[in-house]
């Protein structure tokens, strides 16, 4: 293994030095190209597990380099809505992936996930995918699903596969603050009183159900009614 790689991996130390990954001639992360992860606060993951997840995302999704780190941030955000047990389990799974592959047979000279070449990383993931240990298979599927969902749930990325996204652009609602409301206050209408007049929200004309003969939704654009 290159000296470069050995020097670059720092994991879980006080102060949490950033991991940097070099793939040699293969796509990888280059620290300088990505804004310090501290600048975008991690909510569930710690820095080492963040970078392990970014490395996973670079294998499971089309994302590479900076985008893979963006996907890892997306997963971190999504993890905020999961229960504490599931959050802890995912961090444990990432550390397990990084550190505990020695038991799995590899041709390479390292069993540390983030130091492996992309091909070796794929093999490591497939080893979990096909493992006889149920929880390792489950862990692989969790990582796969979380990263792919974070990638494709963004309609602009899904445009690349022919998804037209929201059918029209609804106005941006107010930003959500911790203690602010999510919606306009509900106006109680007691029975036998007329409802207050409200302008109905502009609705599109009914969209013809999809048939082979009708136009497919345009790729990468938004249809206006």
């Amino acid at each position, binding site marked *: 293994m290159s000296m470069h790689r050995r020097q670059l991996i720092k994991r879980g130390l006080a102060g949490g030095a950033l991991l940097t990954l070099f793939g040699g001639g293969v796509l990888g992360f280059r620290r300088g190209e990505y804004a310090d992860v501290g600048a975008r606060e991690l909510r569930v993951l710690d820095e080492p597990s963040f970078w392990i997840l970014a490395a996973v995302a670079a*294998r499971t*999704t089309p994302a590479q380099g900076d985008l893979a780190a963006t996907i890892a941030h997306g997963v971190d955000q*999504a*993890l*905020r*809505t*999961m*229960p*504490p*047990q*599931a959050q802890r389990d995912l961090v444990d799974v990432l550390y397990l992936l990084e550190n505990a592959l020695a038991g799995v047979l590899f041709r390479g000279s390292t069993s540390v996930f983030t130091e492996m070449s992309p091909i070796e990383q*794929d093999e490591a993931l497939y080893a979990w*995918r*096909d493992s006889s240990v*149920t929880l390792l*298979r*489950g862990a692989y*599927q969790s990582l796969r*699903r979380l990263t*792919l*969902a974070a*990638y*494709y*749930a*963004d*309609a602009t990325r*899904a445009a690349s*596969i022919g*998804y037209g*996204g*929201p*059918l029209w652009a*609804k*106005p941006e*609602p107010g930003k*959500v603050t*911790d*203690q*602010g*409301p*999510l*919606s*306009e*206050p*509900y106006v*109680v*209408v007691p*029975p036998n009183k007329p409802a207050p007049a409200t302008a109905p*929200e502009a*609705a*599109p*004309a*009914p*969209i013809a*159900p*999809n*048939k*082979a003969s009708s136009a*497919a939704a345009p*790729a990468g654009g938004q249809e206006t009614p």
Partner: protein
Amino acid sequence: MSTPAPGLLEGQTATSDLDLDADVIIIGTGPGGAVSASTLARAGLKVLLLEEGGYYTSPRFRMREDEAYPALYQDGAARTTKDLGITVLQGKAVGGTSVVNWTTCFRTPEPTIDQWRRRWGVSSITRDALDPFFTAAEQRLGVTKVAPEQMNRNNELLYRGCQALGFEVDTIKRNVKGCAQTGFCGLGCPIDAKQSMLVSYVPDAMNLGATVVSRCRVERLLFSGARVTGVEGTLLVADGTRPTGYKLRAKAKHFIVAGGGINTPALLLRSDAPDPNDMIGKRTFLHPVVVTAGLYDEPVNGFYGAPQSAASHQFQDRGAEVGYFLEAAPAQPGLAATVLPGMGDEHRKTFKKLPLTAAHIAITIDGFHDDVAGGEVELGAKGRPILDYPISDRLWRAFRDAHKTLAKVQFAAGARMVTTCHERGGILHSVDDIATIDQLDYAPSTVLVTSAHVMGGSLMSDDPKVGVVRAEDLRHKTAENLHIVDGSVFPTSLGVNPQMSIYGLAGLISQRLADRWA
């Protein structure tokens, strides 16, 4: 202690602890809670509804998956069973799962009610008793049958494939008024066409004097002997991810838990509720779903158009084997990407053909066979629920059979290639390849198994030695002022999409309670 004014209080906005009282406290604003609240409020009772989810309304339903899943779903749409083998889609919002469901309405089938009577001691719930309440709910919610020409291509392919094979198939009924066929039911209807609880029974209840407090996670019911004396809740920030620091305490004469499958049993467990028959959390059903994705030579665009408009019950009752019914599923990409197997380039190659892909599902009917008895809810860290759902050989067999059926339907409809979403399943190119399904190893996390219908865990029975609640009034066996009115009371899975069954049962029971309490 104060009696709150009618309307909706978003719990995150409270700037102090809340101490409230009411005649009836209802926990959960989904189908069970909302219908019950409306009936009881109409009878003149002061009703307080407590909801962990947020008060999201249609300005926030922007057809964006990255907004909807964290906001409107349990565990950000990433809820799974304990061994990670089954992914669970369940709602969390004012209006409950009805805000994100796919609008399919079926009355409770007679064979299901027969099973409850024969095997689970349910004599006081009959189709005759339920029918008027089904009718009332269907009227309130604009339930209408889909005309065949309204089906999107994804559903039409299921329909035509079934017809070609001589399988029973029909269009379904949906709870929509003025539907524009956008296809975004699962992300919150952007135009309030879907008649979820959010736009129907919840406002009905508030107009009749009920109060809803959202972003209030009820931590426990407080018991004194055999009675519930109050509830304790934590108020959460707007996005629900952590407490604000303020608490809610509330008292009432009567308590109705309507948190749905998984969450209702979890609340009872957290509260150390009496459990004389040791059944709380047990027999939790998922209608476990398996999927096929078929590739066609034409645009399918399964991410647009009403997600479900057809269903086949050809395989509903398979005797000693587990039955299943066939429907279509929406294919918005954030979700579809997790359903299709594979990763990296291999995944990309298939996934970029999503617009040409039809997604069809088989919904297996758990709870009718002794070795397909559902799962059990346990408490994990911080009292959050975990569902342990082991899959028996009989159920794996059903998944295999259902895959073969679904593949036949896809090919009959004209598919060029079909995947069963099994990681080692490869691609089927014709009906001749369907036999390869028999060579696959079916085990947790080898093949996609998912769920959008969580039922059971607080079994109802008129037999005092069976279950958690009495069937006649859904009252807890021993706690005199505690009722459970939601889908967690079903002794088996339903065999049809659940929402209408809950509307009917909640309508029936809440009327019985209103007559008693008002």
